[in-house]
């Protein structure tokens, strides 16, 4: 059925013969034989002034090319009204405080334009624009339909705006196969479209990035000329988590999935659409750290390294100096280091007497990459990436459908950073915020296999609204509070849904790990905030895609009255979803429940008892904390715990996890993070089946080693790995781990840390 719709349909209008198409100047270079392969796939239509060509919200599978005339393109749905600039009266302030109304946010809105399926975006305060001859619109809907042809029940893409002929307009309406197989392959036509985008929309997109908001026209002109337009096919990976980030992307067309890998699985952070952006980390200047280690224990020093000179020596002084007092083979000021691009330049100073050895050669000047080391005197110097500033991708981005991106390379940007220090500061702040969010997400995501939890619908969400039916008097105050909270007076909460034990899982946003609702919004109005709450912006056109895609029915399309007081209010469809009352200290449905029946929980912790399928007997005595070097006699140690230990049966996984030891990452991916051990075993390796997978670690075997809990001991076993497993510097095949032991697995160095005492 879908195939018939896409490849052959009655378009109406006047079908054009290959000769006629080849004669159109805009299609110069496309041979008529190529047109001949798609008979009936393109038709000419003429529209009178004022006639509607397409309406927002309607399903569509065709694209339009404006041959002559002009059209108006606009969003018919009302957007947020302009707030009064008058300061509220004191009494109003008091009553607003008592009512608990949030303060109005001052400053610029996050978005100034509404992204639509055309060569131009619409200004938020006046969502109307004009398209002239030679411009294309509706291409996203057409390409999305192309992707659906294999599906039994295709999900057609709604029109993102209404198009109306301004004067007499002649358009070519075409099926997606024409767009994809003919026009996009014609270099001249493609270049024309790209130039149109650069001229009309690119500057708006660039200014929508907060870090670029204050850039001068000169800088924007510079970026506009250097920006590349690159295409990606559905499913293609754009960038991977952990890769060196060397460019920044703006989305011109299509949807991009942004996801992160955690020890417990993958989490989709967002689906980004047109005029969104990602990869600001790629614009950061490189930042490194240098770590110096001597031959004896305790001889260690570390320092940050940037493009400024860093002097290293036995008694180097000053702010930009790294002193190595223990090494008598180093001169007072022996060598200097500075960052050059993605590497570090090391240069021996004239005062440095002894040579510096790098890759087993004595050198006076050389470039070191992150992860490499060199020897000066008796000290090893290792160059590391600064974990807080390193330009590494923090997420994997992949194309959901046909995606076109604007790529800006870091080298094009770097030269201007000195002239615009505020941009440098803005990007650094973004990186810091991303890193902080990263750490917060890592601590929120459970370390047990997410796949197990995904089998139960409840676990897909991270935040459930539960109603305790033993306490709920069915007064509906929660729903009334929700309706009172939102200006449109529509409740996002429906007191119906799945029942789990004595709880009702109310129909309310679950903040899913994979927010499918975000995948097909034609105007980018549904998005995820940093706190992972889903919000739907005012310019939603009510197409219903998000409501259809939400697997739990938590998004509803309602008719809301619009108008700004000067025109008659008409009901318009809009999507509404619970946003966890982001503007308030806590969800108002919970706050309004007089009986304490409404609670917000994280399901994996709350339902842990139901999910736990195993029990662990743990000794009541505190595990002996010893250094990795000093060990009491093993035989005596094994006898003593059996006498003194009591056992407790732990069934609740939430109680169990804190008792298990952990591994603190000292170096390698995500240094400083903590890896939770699992029960009864935890495996490490590059293979997908490993509990902790480090796919990029070339020194780690596919299944490198595992840590097994046996008889209240935690035993490390090497699984015949190529490079071996080290404990406290010694290669082992099997060893009981004690708190404080340092384990090296490939490039990963971790410290074994005791769990909490019960």
């Amino acid at each position, binding site marked *: *059925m879908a195939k*018939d*719709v896409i490849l052959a*349909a009655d378009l109406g209008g006047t079908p054009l013969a290959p000769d006629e198409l080849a004669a159109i100047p805009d299609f110069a270079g496309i041979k008529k034989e190529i047109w001949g392969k798609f008979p009936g796939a393109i038709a000419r239509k003429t529209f009178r002034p004022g006639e509607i060509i397409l309406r927002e919200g309607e399903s569509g599978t065709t694209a339009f090319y404006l041959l002559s005339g002009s059209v108006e393109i606009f969003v018919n749905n009302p957007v947020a009204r302009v707030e009064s600039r008058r300061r509220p009266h004191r009494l109003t302030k008091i009553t607003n*405080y*008592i*009512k*608990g*109304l*949030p303060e109005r946010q001052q400053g610029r809105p996050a978005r100034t334009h509404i992204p639509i399926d055309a060569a131009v975006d619409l200004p938020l305060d006046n969502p109307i624009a004009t398209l002239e001859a030679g411009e294309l619109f509706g291409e996203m809907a057409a390409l999305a339909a192309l992707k659906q042809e294999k599906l039994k*029940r295709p999900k057609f893409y709604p029109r993102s705006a209404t198009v109306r002929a301004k004067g007499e307009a002649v358009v070519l309406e075409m099926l997606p196969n024409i767009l994809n197989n003919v026009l996009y392959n014609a270099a001249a036509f493609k270049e024309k479209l790209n130039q149109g985008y650069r001229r009309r929309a690119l500057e708006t997109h660039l200014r929508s990035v907060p870090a670029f908001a204050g850039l001068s026209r000169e800088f924007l002109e510079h970026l506009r000329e250097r920006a590349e337009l690159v295409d990606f096919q559905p499913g293609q990976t754009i960038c991977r988590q952990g890769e060196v980030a060397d460019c920044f992307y703006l989305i011109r067309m299509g949807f991009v999935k942004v996801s992160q890998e955690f020890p417990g699985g993958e989490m989709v952070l967002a689906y980004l659409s047109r005029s969104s952006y990602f990869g600001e980390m790629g614009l950061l200047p490189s930042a490194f750290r240098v770590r110096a280690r001597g031959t004896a224990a305790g001889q260690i020093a570390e320092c940050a390294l940037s493009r400024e000179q860093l002097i290293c020596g036995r008694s180097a002084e000053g702010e930009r100096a790294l002193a190595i007092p223990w090494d008598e083979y180093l001169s007072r000021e022996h060598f200097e280091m500075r960052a050059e691009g993605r590497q570090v330049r090391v240069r021996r100073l004239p005062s440095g007497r002894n040579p510096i050895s790098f890759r087993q050669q004595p050198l006076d000047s050389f470039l070191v990459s992150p992860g490499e080391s060199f020897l000066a005197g008796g000290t090893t110097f290792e160059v590391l990436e600064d974990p807080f500033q390193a330009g590494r991708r923090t997420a994997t981005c992949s194309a959901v459908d046909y995606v076109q991106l604007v790529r800006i390379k870091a080298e094009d940007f770097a030269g201007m950073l000195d002239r615009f220090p505020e941009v440098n500061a803005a990007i650094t702040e973004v990186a810091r915020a991303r890193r902080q969010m990263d750490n917060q997400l890592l601590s929120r995501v459970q370390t047990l296999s997410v796949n197990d939890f995904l089998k139960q619908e409840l676990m897909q969400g991270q935040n459930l609204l539960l109603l305790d*039916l*033993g*306490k*709920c*008097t*069915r*007064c*509906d*105050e929660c729903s*009334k*509070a929700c309706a*009172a*909270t939102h200006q449109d007076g529509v409740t996002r909460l*429906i*007191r*119906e849904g799945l*029942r789990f034990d*004595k709880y009702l899982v109310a129909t309310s946003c679950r903040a899913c790990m994979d927010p499918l609702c975000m995948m097909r919004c034609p105007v980018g109005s549904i998005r995820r905030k940093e706190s992972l709450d889903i919000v739907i912006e005012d310019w939603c056109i009510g197409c219903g895609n998000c409501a259809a895609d939400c697997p739990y029915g938590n998004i509803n399309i309602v008719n809301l009255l619009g108008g700004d007081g000067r025109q008659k209010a008409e009901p318009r469809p809009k999507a509404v979803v619970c946003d966890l*009352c982001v503007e*308030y*200290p806590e969800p*108002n*449905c919970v*706050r*309004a*429940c*007089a*009986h*304490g*029946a409404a609670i917000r929980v994280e399901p994996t912790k709350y339902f842990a008892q139901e999910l736990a399928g195993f029990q662990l007997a743990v000794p009541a005595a505190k595990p002996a904390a010893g250094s990795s070097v000093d060990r009491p006699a093993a035989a005596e140690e094994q006898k003593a715990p059996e006498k003194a230990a009591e056992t407790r049966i732990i069934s609740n996984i939430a109680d169990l996890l804190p008792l298990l030891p952990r591994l603190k990452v000292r170096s390698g991916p995500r240094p400083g993070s903590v890896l939770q051990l699992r029960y009864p075993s935890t495996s490490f390796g590059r293979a997908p089946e490993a509990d902790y997978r480090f796919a990029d670690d070339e020194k780690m075997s596919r299944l490198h080693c595992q840590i097994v809990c046996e008889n209240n001991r935690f035993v490390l076993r090497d699984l015949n790995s190529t490079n071996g497993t080290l404990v406290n510097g010694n290669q082992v095949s099997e060893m009981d781990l004690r708190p404080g032991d340092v384990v090296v697995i490939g490039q990963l160095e971790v410290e074994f840390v005791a769990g909490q005492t019960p």
Partner: protein
Amino acid sequence: MIVDRSHSRWMLGCAALGLGSTAAYVFYALRAPNGPSGGSPAGLAFAFAGAGLIGFECLLSLRKKYPASPLGRVQTWLRAHIWLGLLSLLLILFHAGFRWGQGLALLLMWLFAVITASGVFGLVLQRYLPRRITELAPRETLYDQIPQVIRLLRMEADERVEFVTADLGVDDGEPAALYAGGKKFYFDAAQRKSAAEKVEAERQKRKASPQIAVDEEAGRALKAHYLQEIRPFLALRPSGFARRLFHNPGAVSAYFQYLRTIMPVASHDVLRDLEAICEERRQLAVQARLHRWLHGWLYVHVPLSMAFLVLTAVHAVLSLRY
């Protein structure tokens, strides 16, 4: 609200205040030359304190109107409402000197007694009825939606029976939803037919002739049982006979067990569906009844409280002025 350990602070606090008030009252009553009086300084003090608490009690409905207010959670306000309400009863009794008075004062005392009693009654109901609803009506829905759900159940039942009997000859008016006997239809661009048109075609086909083959006598029997016994129970207000027929889960089960013995096997799927529909209808009736009990006391408590507040003001003005 369930009164449990989390109320202990309120209990202890109000108990302490109550004891203090009692001690003050006893001291005052023993020393008063003509006995305790509402117009004495101590009596007036008790009156103002009690009236103040009563005024606060009436603010609960206002608090519920602004759920985001930073002035404490609604749960906290309800706890205050309960315990301070009981304390205010004590204070008013102290004000009145445990006399019921005459005229307006007598009316006020009776009103207050009824209000307090209805509040305590409501508290008891709230402890037990939510659990009963959960146990007895697992298929419950939103109370306001019960009529709509019943209507949809009836339509669904009609549709199921028509698979066996063809057209039943009943008409419920414009269907709120489109049913097609469990099939799903999508827009077919090639045929350019909407889902509604396809569903209507399916519905007409079902009404025209039976889709499940059973002998004519069995079909007539099912139609008769359905129209005379089952369908009346699926009305918004079922008759007494229908209610008695399906008064508990056992009765529903027994009825359909009987039907399964007289109807051919081909129709047993339909009978199973009808049994589920009737059981859901029965549970909705239970839910509605328990919901009315759970909230009905408010129709006494709230209006009387408003009346009491107004009359208290009148009483205060009259007492102080005259």
